[in-house]
C-alpha cells in the first residue's frame, strides 16, 4: 500500500471513530428523561383517599357477639373506619366487621384505576389495627396518603388512617 493509501486508511478510521462517538452521544442525550412517578402516585393516592373517605354509604354495620349493630345511613367511609379502629383497640372481643369491610373494599376497587393495587390501613399508637383487604401485602413501591384523627371519645391514642396504592399490572 502506498503512503497515500495509509493516510486514507488513517483518515477513514479516525472519521469513523469520531462519528461513531458522536452518534452514541446524540442517542444517549435523546433518551427519555425519567419522570418522577412517585410524586404522581402520591398525588393520586391523596385524591383517592379523599374520594374514598368522603363517600357515604347506607347499611354499614358490624357484628358484636353475633348481633348486628347498624350504623346510620350516609355514614362516611372515614367515620366507619374510625369507629372500627376505635372499637378494635378498646372494644370487647367478638367484633366482626368483615361484611362492611368487603363493601368498602369493593368500592375502593371500583374507584381505583385499572392496574393499581391498594390497601386501607388503620393504626393506633403506631400499631396496625386494621387492614383492608385482610391479607394486604404492600410492595416496597407503594405510596401512602394518610390523616391523623383524635380519638373518637376524646381520650386515648390518636388514630391514623391511610390509603396505600401501588402500580400492580395484571
Amino acid at each position, binding site marked *: 500500500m502506498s503512503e*497515500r493509501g495509509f493516510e486514507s486508511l488513517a483518515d*477513514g478510521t479516525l472519521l469513523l471513530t469520531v462519528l461513531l462517538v458522536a452518534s452514541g452521544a*446524540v442517542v444517549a442525550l435523546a433518551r427519555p428523561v425519567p419522570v418522577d412517578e412517585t410524586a404522581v402516585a402520591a398525588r393520586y393516592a391523596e*385524591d383517592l383517599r379523599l*374520594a374514598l373517605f368522603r363517600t357515604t354509604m347506607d347499611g354499614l354495620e358490624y357484628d358484636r357477639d353475633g348481633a348486628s349493630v347498624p350504623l346510620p345511613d350516609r355514614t*362516611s367511609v372515614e367515620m366507619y373506619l374510625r369507629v372500627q379502629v376505635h372499637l378494635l383497640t378498646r372494644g370487647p372481643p367478638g367484633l366482626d366487621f368483615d361484611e362492611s369491610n368487603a363493601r368498602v373494599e369493593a368500592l375502593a376497587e371500583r374507584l381505583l384505576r385499572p392496574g393499581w393495587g391498594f390497601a386501607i390501613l388503620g393504626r393506633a399508637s403506631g400499631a396496625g389495627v386494621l387492614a383492608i383487604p385482610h391479607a394486604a401485602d404492600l410492595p416496597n413501591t407503594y405510596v401512602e396518603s394518610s390523616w391523623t384523627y383524635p380519638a373518637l371519645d376524646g381520650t386515648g391514642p390518636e388514630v391514623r388512617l391511610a390509603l396505600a396504592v401501588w402500580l400492580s399490572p395484571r
Partner: protein
Amino acid sequence: MRDPRGVGGVDDLFLLLVAVLSFSLFFASFARAYATREAQERGERLGGLADSLLTAVLSDPRWTHGHGLLARDALGIVSVEALRPLAANHPFEVVIWDLATEERWTFHDGSGDGDWRTSATGANVVGSSVDPARVAATVWGP
C-alpha cells in the same frame, strides 16, 4: 504493473465509503434522537394539558364545593364551551362517572385525531349523598 492513479483512486474510494457509512450512521442516529425527543416533549405537553384540564374540572367553583367535590345540581351547567379554554383549545374529552348511580357526564370537543394523553383520578359527586366518582380528562394533539 500497477497504475499509480488507479491505486490512488482505490484509496479515495475507500475513504469515500467510510465517510458515507460514518455520516449515514451519524445522521440516522441524529434523526432518531430528534424524533424521540420531539415525541417525548409532545407527550409531556399533552400530559400536562390533561392534568391541568382534570385539575380545573375538579376545582372550578362554578360546579364544585371544593377540590374533588362535584356538585350534582351544578353539573348541568358544565359545557364544552366552558371547558374549551381549560384545554387550551385542543380536542378533549372529559368523563365524570358516578360509581354509585352509574350516571355519566361526557363532554367531548374536536375530532380527537393524533397523539393523546389521559389523566384520571377519584372524586365525589355531592347531592343528597356523597357518591364516589371517577373523572378522566383526555387531550389530543398533533
